[in-house]
């Protein structure tokens, strides 16, 4: 079977700064200037207080694995070559959650609540994906 190309993010225009920053290997998230809560994924307005007074801030890139799984078979076609790969929900220090992959270690070494830090993987000329590796600290 021919393996299709990896799906690229279908970008909402207000999230463009996130993807532009990722291309420069920076992880940015939004923060509400009114209620001061961090926001991920990017929104048109703050989902906590509805303010549209939101700004982009650098995230620490540090967090923990909330949950994870190692894909060993029956993945979507575009990911068959990546098996085994780790899908994880990561909780950033800023209190937001994101889905990503854990890389830079054996899949079997990943654990819940394991400290991780951001790393970047180029997907194509347009997109770089933020991924996570075991924390070095």
């Amino acid at each position: 079977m021919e393996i299709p190309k990896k799906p690229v993010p279908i970008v909402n225009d207000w999230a463009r700064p996130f993807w532009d920053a990722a291309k420069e290997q920076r992880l940015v998230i939004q923060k509400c200037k009114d209620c001061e809560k961090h926001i991920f994924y990017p929104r048109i307005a703050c989902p906590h207080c509805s303010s549209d007074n939101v700004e982009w801030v650098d995230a620490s890139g540090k967090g923990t694995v909330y949950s994870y799984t190692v894909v060993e078979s029956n993945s979507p076609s575009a990911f068959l070559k990546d098996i085994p790969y780790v899908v994880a929900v990561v909780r950033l220090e800023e209190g937001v959650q994101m889905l990503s992959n854990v890389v830079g270690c054996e899949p079997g070494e990943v654990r819940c609540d394991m400290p991780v830090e951001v790393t970047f993987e180029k997907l194509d000329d347009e997109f770089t994906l933020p991924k996570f590796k075991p924390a070095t600290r």
Partner: protein
Amino acid sequence: MSSLRGKVAIVGIGEVPTGRFPERAAIYHAIESARLAIKDAGISKDDIDFVMPTAALFSPQFNTELVTCRIIEEMGLKNARTNCQVFAGGSSGSCFLKLGGSLIQSGLAKYVLCVHADRLGSGVSLQGGIDLFSTAGISAEWEVPFGQHYSTIAALTTTRYQYETGCTDEHMAAVCVSNRKWAELNPNAIFRKPLTIEEVMASKMLSTPLRAKHSNMLFDGGSAFILTSAERARDITDKPVYLLGEGSRVTHFVFSQEPDITRFGWADAGRQAFEEAGLTPKDMDLAEIYDSYPIYQIIAMEELGFCERGKAGELHLKGETWPGGPLPTTTNGGMLSQGHTGAGGGIAILVETARQLMGKAGQRQVQGARFAVETCTGGTYMDAQVAVLGTEIP
């Protein structure tokens, strides 16, 4: 609190066997299920004034036919006034109850035909099904690019739940075994051979700790039911299945945004439904739980209050949920054993709830069943939908 308590009832049910029927057009499953439901209700097809199909996922062409009144024309429903699709993924069955019930309560409809048909078994390949469900209901910006799909979603929930509660792989397998015991007694189920914990635990690993036999499989199928007012129901049948309570809560769209992937909105939804019904989990003769993967049956039962957190696996392992046990659970075998038909999985479990309460469940009939709780959830478990139904209004 809604005003539907004791005001609307299911009066007829229909269902075709789940399986792979490459020679059978999808419309067959819809029409045959609808015919069976009309016959079961003891009404004429021309009593139906509102047709509510849910969506079929295998073909946009077929789905458009459902939207544009094909069922009404094929069946010759002369007095049908409206055809309107109601679709909320796996929770479409709960939305049928709420929306169909509201139309009846308001006087806008007398007999609502709720119907589902899909061909995900013969109309889509195995890899095609995986690929379909690696985008359907999954965020194209924030999750699809990382290889998320329904096995990883169930696995992420299972991993964290096991980490927090100590629930084991054996407990997960016990859910599959329990549901299979019911399916052995269900002629419409696809998987009817006895299943053991060892077989589940030896099956192919998909996404750790989720194995092939923890996973639902996609098939062709259809089911239907008829809703009417409680008064009309009492005129035409001596076993109306009343809607007694309803509860629901939406907690996310993007799975990774869910603040607690080991609980979701079940506690809140369950509390609302039991409160409206004026009943408690202890009053339930049946727990008809949406089970696309074993972890979701476990979480829903605990959050609804059938046992303490971390203990539902044990209930299944000890056989309390089995035929003959004190808490008959998911008595059609669920999506794990009857088979997953898209939006139909959540409709089949509602049809089974009505079937049991009507006393029409054949070999798997739970004798004297009066009250049941039924759950559905859509997409990536984003909404918790709970209904309490019964043969009497307490």
